[in-house]
């Protein structure tokens, strides 16, 4: 087990009393509670953490937070493993197992580095493009070589959660500005959410020494954080959340958060949630997202040990870890001087501060000089040496951006660089706002505020603590004041006045005196191995738009989304194109800010809760009687009821025979049902249906077709007239919601003066459809208050009465062509009535049947199913349903379209029956039909099969189809070429195959 050789003897927000064991790339290490995987590895002196994506160069830590591009690790094993984790944000827990997939010792893919001249930007596009069919195998190999992680191959059994939240003010970022904003808003009594992606609040304060010199309101920074969090936590309407990343900013102040509830401690306990996805609708949003330090670009700037200066300070001050023994600081601004002073305070050598600026002045420069740190001004590091660890740096004098004179080589094992700060404008920009370049601060700042949103702290370029605090306080107050709260009086938390500051000098790439393509690589995007030379190549090849250069070089395409490298890359591109940075612009900032787990996106919408399974009142009976189910929309409908080891076809044949010869029963509860009533119901329904409703007599039923205004069939069903201007409509199972919406839309938006109501009653009624010659006798056994005599209860009428002791509406309608009755009862009694029907039907051999038999029986009669035999492009005439159109009607929805030239012309597909020449073959539904199977490709298609079954009644297979001008082609043969190369021939027939006279339903 390794020793924590790089751990400082004191300091840091770690618990030295709690030692934590973990495994990284197969080796065991120890760290302390409060460490991240990154800080613990650094403490153990591990400098090479992974290999780079393309060149397989050894890589170490660059950052200390979400920006980390190199230390992308796989954490955990089995179904719970998580790829793409930043070691800088992985909290240490006992038993943690992490790895970087690429091999860390000798890496044969490291040859990519040796031969890297042959792997410039666009290499993959150019090389693997041909032949196109080989790309899948190329891709597999490239991905294996890249090795950024893998997804679990076993099911993840953890629980993931969604939570919708509302608040007055959402504060994103719990640094000084965010805390100040939340305090002000919370004190006013507003509902506040304060979220931070880190394990604790404090933001940039955690990276600094907890010195009284930085006191806030006379408290040390850490004490102020603790007091502020305690105050906020005690407020009833404030919710403070750590380990919660605001990953996306969406329209109308809708923010996505991902909260880690368990990963940080090794996984959830029983019943606990692993990740929670928060969907927050905030009245106001204060973005206090801070800023990320940019690295500087120079030769071999990717060698392990080269980090951002703020990362070095973070490891020192927050984790009590010194990344090395001897550091060279390279900067173009003041902030890295603080890192040099932090190193000194920790007892580590600072070999030099290399500053591109001439004669640095100001409070921090003075302090560095006082501490005896050599300062090389007007200078830059032009390249680093060392391979698995930086060993030294070569510095040079730089004048007007050009190499003036090569200088010393300085030995070191750490380089702390600062190229300035990039405000985290991501969330601000997710909803379309463009960031704006600020020359003075040399960074992109948020543009004008999005509605209901504001920014505070260093994201606005307010880099001093004092300004961040006052801005946060101000924005928190402004947000609640806009909502009508009274912000409390009192001043913003106070911090010491900042010392004098020397302005930043923008500096994008160290000059080498050579073309970019020569000399050591100068990395811009570490994760995707994009170099300054790649950008230059893109420009040479004619790319000008930053979006195109991004796609050509892959800059910013990694899981880190280019948090460190993008601004450097854009600035280098700007200078190569000889234009300004604002002219060049940024690429588009899109969610997610950091990767979001698939589990949290799914939430509990998985497994049995993936989608509702709608069940009828008789569902459990069907289950108990061996039904197999078919999904019809969200409904579970019995498909067929196999007995013992009966085949599907045998079961269907049996169900069909029983129904045609004795009695069958179908659960038809899923049909949509709507009650329509009001003085204008007749008038309204006359406009909706193709047929007339006005002359219907109370107590009768009528089949109806609804068209869209384009004349195409939209839905069908039976209308029963319960009373004058009171109707009971049925719709298809899948069409119910759409029909109700259709009725409401016409009523509300076109004819609001009509007095009519529509009420959805699908779930109220359980429907038991008893079909077959014996159905009358069965009903008579169950009901003594309805006269079932043929004349007394005629076909297409209904009666109200009592069935099996339950109040019922009984409809004499038929979807099988047999004598049939549909019993509708209060669904609470559905199971009771169903069982009573089964008992009463037993002497007649009553057989339950499912949707498949229903389809066979109705198709034998040529009855259509809207949505199966119609496809939204057929008219009633196409379907041979002229009879359904009211002859004397002046108008109905879709009527005008039925006389359009292209609707009445020849060549339309018309509804027909098909009988395959070989009656044992069932045409696959959806099959295309052609006149000549030998015709040249592309073969003209003249129609398609919409329904197709084997019929026990007919003794052969049959189908329903639409065929061009099919009604005049009865007796002709069409052909259906199949995927397997075979061709099925079939004869065109009338679509009614059984009992053409309709005698059987009328007995």
């Amino acid at each position: 087990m390794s020793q924590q050789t790089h751990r400082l003897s004191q300091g840091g927000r770690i618990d030295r009393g709690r030692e934590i064991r973990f495994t990284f790339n197969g080796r065991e290490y120890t760290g302390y509670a409060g460490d991240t995987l990154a800080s613990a590895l650094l403490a153990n002196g591990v400098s090479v953490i992974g290999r780079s994506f393309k060149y397989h160069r050894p890589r170490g830590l660059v950052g200390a937070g979400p920006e980390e591009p190199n230390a992308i690790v796989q954490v955990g094993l089995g179904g719970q493993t998580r790829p793409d984790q930043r070691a800088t944000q992985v909290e240490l827990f006992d038993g943690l197992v992490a790895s970087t997939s690429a091999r860390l010792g000798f890496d044969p893919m490291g040859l990519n580095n040796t031969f890297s001249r042959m792997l410039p930007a666009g290499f993959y596009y150019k090389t693997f493009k041909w032949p196109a069919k080989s790309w899948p195998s190329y891709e597999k190999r490239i991905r294996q070589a890249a090795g950024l992680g893998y997804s679990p191959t076993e099911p993840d059994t953890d629980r993931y959660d969604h939570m919708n939240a509302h608040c007055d003010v959402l504060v994103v970022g719990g640094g000084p500005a965010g805390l100040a904003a939340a305090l002000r808003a919370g004190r006013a009594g507003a509902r506040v959410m304060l979220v931070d992606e880190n394990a604790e609040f404090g933001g940039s304060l955690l990276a600094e020494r907890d010195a009284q010199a930085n006191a806030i309101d006379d408290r040390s920074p850490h004490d102020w954080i603790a007091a502020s969090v305690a105050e906020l936590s005690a407020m009833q309407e404030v919710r403070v959340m750590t380990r919660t990343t605001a990953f996306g900013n969406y329209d109308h102040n809708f923010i996505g958060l991902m909260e880690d509830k368990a990963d940080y401690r090794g996984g959830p306990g029983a019943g606990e949630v692993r990740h929670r996805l928060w969907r927050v609708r905030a009245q106001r949003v204060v973005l206090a997202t801070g800023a990320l330090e940019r690295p500087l670009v120079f030769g071999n700037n990717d060698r392990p040990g080269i980090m951002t200066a703020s990362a070095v300070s973070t490891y020192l001050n927050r984790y009590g870890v010194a990344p090395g023994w001897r550091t060279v600081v390279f900067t173009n601004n003041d902030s890295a001087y603080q890192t040099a002073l932090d190193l000194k305070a920790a007892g580590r050598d600072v070999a030099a501060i290399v500053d591109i600026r001439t004669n640095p002045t100001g409070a921090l420069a003075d302090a560095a000089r006082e501490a005896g740190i050599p300062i090389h001004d007007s200078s830059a590091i032009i390249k680093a040496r060392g391979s698995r660890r930086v060993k030294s740096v070569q510095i040079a004098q730089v004048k007007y951006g050009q190499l003036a004179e090569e200088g010393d080589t300085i030995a070191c094992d750490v380089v702390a660089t600062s190229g300035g700060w990039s405000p985290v404008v991501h969330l601000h920009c997710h909803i379309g706002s463009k960031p704006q370049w600020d020359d003075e601060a040399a960074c992109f700042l948020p543009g004008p505020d999005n509605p209901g949103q504001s920014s505070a702290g260093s994201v606005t370029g307010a880099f001093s603590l004092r300004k961040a605090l006052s801005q946060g306080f101000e924005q928190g107050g402004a947000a609640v004041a806009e909502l009508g709260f009274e912000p409390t009086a009192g001043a913003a938390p106070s911090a010491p006045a900042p010392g004098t500051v020397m302005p930043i000098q923008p500096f994008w790439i160290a000059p080498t005196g050579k073309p970019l393509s020569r000399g050591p690589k100068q990395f811009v995007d570490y994760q995707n191995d994009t170099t300054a030379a790649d950008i230059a190549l893109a420009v040479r090849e004619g790319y000008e738009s930053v979006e195109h250069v991004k796609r050509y070089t892959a800059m910013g395409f990694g899981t880190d989304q280019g948090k460190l490298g993008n601004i450097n890359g854009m600035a280098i591109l700007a200078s190569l194109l000889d234009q300004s940075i604002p002219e060049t612009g940024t690429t588009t900032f899109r969610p997610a800010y950091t990767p979001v787990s698939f589990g949290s996106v799914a939430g509990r919408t998985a497994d049995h809760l993936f989608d509702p399974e709608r069940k009828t009142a008789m569902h459990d009976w069907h289950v108990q009687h061996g039904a197999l189910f078919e999904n019809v929309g969200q409904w579970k409908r019995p498909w067929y009821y196999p007995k013992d080891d009966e085949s599907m076809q045998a079961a269907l044949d049996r169900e069909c025979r029983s129904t045609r010869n004795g009695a069958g029963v179908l659960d038809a509860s899923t049909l949509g049902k709507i009650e329509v009533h009001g003085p204008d119901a007749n008038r309204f329904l006359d406009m909706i249906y193709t047929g007339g409703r006005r002359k219907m007599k109370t107590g009768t039923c009528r089949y109806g077709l609804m068209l869209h205004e384009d004349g195409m069939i939209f839905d069908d069903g039976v209308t029963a007239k319960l009373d004058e201007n009171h109707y009971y409509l049925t719709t298809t199972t899948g069409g119910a919601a759409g029909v109700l919406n259709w009725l409401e839309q016409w009523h509300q938006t076109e004819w609001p003066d009509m007095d009519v109501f529509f009420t959805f009653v699908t779930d109220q009624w359980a429907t038991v459809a008893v079909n077959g010659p014996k159905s009358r006798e069965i009903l008579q056994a169950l009901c003594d208050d309805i006269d079932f005599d043929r004349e007394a209860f005629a076909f297409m009428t209904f009666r109200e009465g009592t069935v099996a002791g339950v109040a019922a509406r009984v409809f004499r309608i038929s979807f099988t062509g047999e004598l049939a009755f549909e019993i509708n009862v209060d669904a609470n009694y559905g199971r009771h009535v169903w069982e009573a029907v089964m008992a009463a039907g037993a002497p007649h051999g009553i057989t339950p049947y499912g949707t498949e038999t229903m389809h066979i029986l109705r198709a034998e009669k040529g009855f259509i199913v809207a949505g199966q035999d119609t496809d939204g492009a057929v008219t009633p005439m196409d379907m041979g349903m002229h009879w359904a159109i009211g002859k004397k009607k002046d108008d109905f929805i879709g009527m005008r379209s039925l006389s359009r030239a292209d609707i009445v012309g020849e060549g339309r597909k018309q509804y027909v029956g098909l009988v395959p020449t070989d009656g044992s073959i069932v045409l696959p539904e959806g099959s295309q039909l052609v006149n000549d199977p030998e015709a040249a490709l592309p073969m003209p298609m003249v129609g398609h099969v919409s329904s197709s079954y084997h019929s026990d009644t007919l003794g052969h297979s049959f189908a329903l189809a639409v065929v061009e001008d099919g009604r005049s082609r009865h007796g002709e043969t069409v052909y259906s070429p199949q995927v397997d190369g075979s061709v099925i021939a079939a004869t065109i027939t009338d679509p009614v195959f059984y009992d053409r006279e309709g005698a059987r339903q009328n007995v």
Partner: protein
Amino acid sequence: MSEIKIESPLVDQVEAVRGNSAPAKVGVRMTEHPFLGQIVLRGKSSDTAFTAACAGVLGCEVPTTPNTYAEGQGVVIAWMGPTEWLVLVDGESTPAWLSALRGALADVHAGVLDTSGGQTLISLEGPAALDVLAKGSTLDLHPRVAPTGFCTRSLLAKSAMFVRVVEAGQRFEIVVRRSFADYLWQWLVDAGGEYGLAIQPAESTLVLAGLQASAPPKTATGA
């Protein structure tokens, strides 16, 4: 004729009928109230003949403020839309309410529809009740926005629901359509598990909030 069997949509959920053995920590209590009278009332609130007839039967005015409900003697009447109300009564009294309403509204453009078999009612109560609902609902049910007396139709998980606030922030009633009830029940059991979910045996009683007058809810969350 054999005995007439009545079954709730949650008949297959054994715990909904009998209750569960409550966990050590209980954050939310869930109860099905099956077989209540659930009557949909249709009419126009501008039609004084309609409102007067309703008030005469119900013993309280039909609420015309969106998303509020009123209570009379043994009856809850909830605004569902500009021309639609849900009337909740005890199951046994349903036929009497139906005939009283139908009688009073016989000559008015109105509708009285019995939907008692088409939906069921589930109550959620306890400190975590609001959080359980928030997992599947985008409604803001905070007491400042949804006080006692608030009600609305909305979505819960992937099901339509009607929700009534019986005690602000603490006790909610969900009305769910029959065919979705089994799904929604399982969803609620899963969502409530995190907090400790006690399922109480089904209870076919109507619970009143004891409203005096319904206060109009605020539409914004601000003070």
